[in-house]
């Protein structure tokens, strides 16, 4: 072959060692779920504390219906906390399954994994939207939250949530698509 100094120089730079990008690393769902879990915890803590305080006040005044609604809202807040904890745990579990699963076993676990991923998706939607909205609605209906505060906080929460969703939701969706592609490819679908 005719010596080519240009190609030789190119080859030297081209072959500079680079990080190994071919590590057979499965997607990290737990990493994506971390932010969602934090938001869920913060929302649950804030609303739960508020609801308990309002419920306590109402009960001291002898307003049983309002007190009961506020306590119910506090229970919902605890449920939110529990839901996001499970969301994160399930994401971590899915990661562990993907990481430790030999290729030949993936087919057998495919349905199991897909169920888990659907569950993660469902819980994310639930924790992010239904519960906070339900809580706030219950508190406002009970009169435990002054209307201006309810309006301002609802708008603020919605804006915050929208910002966070814009940041994390596409990533979560992309990761889920990647996991599904993995399952499809490796499971021989």
């Amino acid at each position, binding site marked *: 072959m005719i010596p080519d100094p240009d190609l030789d*120089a190119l080859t030297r730079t081209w*072959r500079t060692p680079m990080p190994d990008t071919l*590590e057979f690393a499965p997607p990290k769902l737990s990493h994506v779920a971390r932010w969602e879990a934090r938001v869920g915890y913060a929302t649950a803590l804030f609303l739960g504390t508020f609801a308990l305080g309002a419920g306590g006040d109402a009960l001291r005044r002898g307003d049983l219906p309002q007190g009961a609604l506020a306590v119910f809202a506090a229970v919902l807040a605890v449920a939110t906390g529990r839901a996001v904890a499970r969301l994160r745990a399930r994401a971590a579990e899915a990661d562990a399954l993907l990481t430790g699963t030999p290729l030949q076993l993936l087919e057998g676990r495919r349905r199991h994994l897909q169920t888990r991923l659907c569950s993660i998706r469902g819980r994310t939607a639930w924790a992010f939207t239904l519960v906070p909205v339900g809580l706030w609605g219950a508190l406002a209906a009970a009169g435990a939250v002054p209307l201006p505060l309810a309006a301002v906080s609802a708008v603020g929460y919605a804006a915050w949530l929208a910002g966070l969703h814009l940041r994390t939701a596409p990533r979560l969706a992309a990761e889920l698509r990647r996991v599904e592609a993995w399952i499809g490819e490796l499971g021989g679908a």
Partner: protein
Amino acid sequence: MTDWNEVRALHGAALARVVASYAPPGPDREELAQEVAIALVRALERFRGEASVKTFVLRVAHNVGLRHALRRRQLPEPSDGEVADAAPGVLAHLVAHADRERLHAAVRALPLAQRQVLTLALEELDHPTIAEVLGISENAVATRLFRAKARLAALLEHP
């Protein structure tokens, strides 16, 4: 039978460079690397030794990279047309002043046909093997390689 771990140990670096020629650093590159890995795990089951392992894995990687590039392409592909020839040694001089990522970026800016030939040449495949991997004639390999070097020099000189 050749398995993935063996391929990765022997050709992992070359595969990573192929991936870098199709995707910029970040999630896009990671995703393509995963796609290449998955394609190879599956393709190696069918490998019967018709070509060398290196030729086989580079062919698979380039096919996956090409699909990825075509799927992701948002800008029109640069034309495969003429670029002023660079005098011998000019490219070597430019490359000496470019780091690896800049070189990768310049390679990614090449038209796909030139990029594939150049990256295979950089993996020290000879012209007949490159022609076999890409399913083109040796003359086409020589022409594309010549054009790729000229365009690369232009890209490195005026990024």
